[in-house]
């Protein structure tokens, strides 16, 4: 489904991250993403950080397209198509959710749906996203910052490992930088704890035909972006390499 929507509301989440809200009727599930078209600039994948009839995307400014999105005003229009991807399997298991940086975006609809504990990781206190809202849904929200400016001093994986060892979680759901996810996956594997991780690859079509988002034999856009432990084990590229827009192998 391809549409043009009007931005209803923009909220600044941190110095480089904003959330844009718009009404869009498409039925979506937590963990799915859309392609956002900023005419004349680019079309890029964005996770849905709300999946109700009001949808949101939470965008970190990292380059041209994300800067153009940050320059938008309320009332401006963007193109959206989707929803794409499989989404998380919300299965009722006792869950630890781990979000690194803007990786919190696709996790918010999960937290709104299931009862889970949460680790939010970021480089420093002013980059911690969604803490306030998350505390409304989760009994236990823990924070880690690389620079120690808030909560646990260290990375989210270290904090998550400590929580896994204390708690009796049955699964881990996470999104964030791939290197973090890779360490988290290994930590879970060591403990025999199943994971669902949301990954990213360069996307062009988002409908599963162009092959630009391949991760091993999997299309991240349609077979993913969420992968469970069983599939992650079969993906030697996970945590190691990705493909550039030309399809060349690039180390992570």
């Amino acid at each position, binding site marked *: 489904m391809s549409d043009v929507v009007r931005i209803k509301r923009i909220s600044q989440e941190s110095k480089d991250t904003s959330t844009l809200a718009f009404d869009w009727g498409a039925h979506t599930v937590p963990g799915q993403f859309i392609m956002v078209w900023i*005419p004349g600039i*680019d079309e890029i994948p964005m996770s849905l950080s709300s999946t109700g009839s009001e949808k949101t995307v939470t965008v970190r400014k990292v380059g041209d397209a994300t800067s153009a999105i940050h320059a938008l005003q309320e009332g401006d*229009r963007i193109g959206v198509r989707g929803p794409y991807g499989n989404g998380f399997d919300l299965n009722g298991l006792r869950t630890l959710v781990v979000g690194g940086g803007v990786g919190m975006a696709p996790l918010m609809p999960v937290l709104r749906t299931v009862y889970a504990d949460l680790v939010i990781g970021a480089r420093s206190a002013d980059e911690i996203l969604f803490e306030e809202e998350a505390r409304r849904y989760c009994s236990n929200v823990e924070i880690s910052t690389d620079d120690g400016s808030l909560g646990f001093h260290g990375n989210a994986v270290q904090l998550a490992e400590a929580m896994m060892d204390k708690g009796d979680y049955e699964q881990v759901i996470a999104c964030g930088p791939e290197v973090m996810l890779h360490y988290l996956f290994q930590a879970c594997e060591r403990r025999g704890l199943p994971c669902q991780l949301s990954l990213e690859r360069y996307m062009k079509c988002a409908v599963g*035909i*162009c092959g630009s988002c391949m991760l091993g034999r999997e299309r991240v856009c349609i077979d993913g972006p969420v992968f469970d432990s069983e599939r992650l084990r079969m993906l030697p590229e996970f945590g190691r390499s990705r493909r550039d827009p030309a*399809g*060349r192998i690039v180390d992570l």
Partner: protein
Amino acid sequence: MTDLTVSISSIKMDNPSMLASGILDETGDSLLRMMSVGAGAVVTKSIGMLPHDGHPNPCIVETADGYVNAMGLPNPGMEEFAEELRVIMPTPAPVIASIYASSAADFATIAVSMEEAGAAGIELNLSCPHASGFGMEVGTDPATVGSIVAAVKDAVKVPVMAKLTPNTAELVRIGKAVEEAGGDAVVAINTLKAMVISPEFARPVLSNRYGGLSGSAIKPVGVRAVYDLYRELEIPIVGVGGICGWRDAAEYIMAGATCFQVGSAVGTVGPEVFTRIIEGLEAFMGEYGYPDLDSMRGAAHE
């Protein structure tokens, strides 16, 4: 027992389905995946001399009954892609390397590199409707087409097929030029030159403005093209355009196709489309008394 095996010169296939160029075929692993769901052969993404990012996004639009795309021939370039192929060789099904270039000499160079890397055949992309200096722009003149085919035939031992554009009234003449230059097969059709405009933004959606229409929408045009070619050519025809089920494949075979390719349906139906088409085709051939593909090919001409 229904016999689904078929060959195009030295390319031997267990069944007549091929993955179309540009569809999940830019990496070794994706090619292997498509073999695992039953593709009788796979055609690679069109490969050029040098790595190329392709057009910026948006490069695809979903339409009611297909896609309009302008990927702009993204590919990792001949050298890196040859390495992808070497790693997966030998493969359970033949790999045909699609290649593009702007001169006959470059076509030949890339073809040699692909042959060395293990490609069982070469498909010349003479038909991409949205890449300037390549594709369709080299593929609408019979003489140019002939010279490219001849140069590549000279350079490699594996069979060479030429993929034709439907965006011309000269399709059959160009097919003839391929045959006369020694080409082993023609592939028809590539996408139809198309455009999608966003009313709200008052501009073409694709960054390249122009794109190519594929999917069910174009099937009747592709079937007609194959039918036309079959009347005039001796060499095998590979049918492509809008195939998403066994009936579509059967239409192409009866129009005269030796093999067929599936592209867009890998998105609209899923990769399992290959398994389903082959099973459906086998059941149909059994029920209607076609022991093999030879007995069915061109049946609509009688």
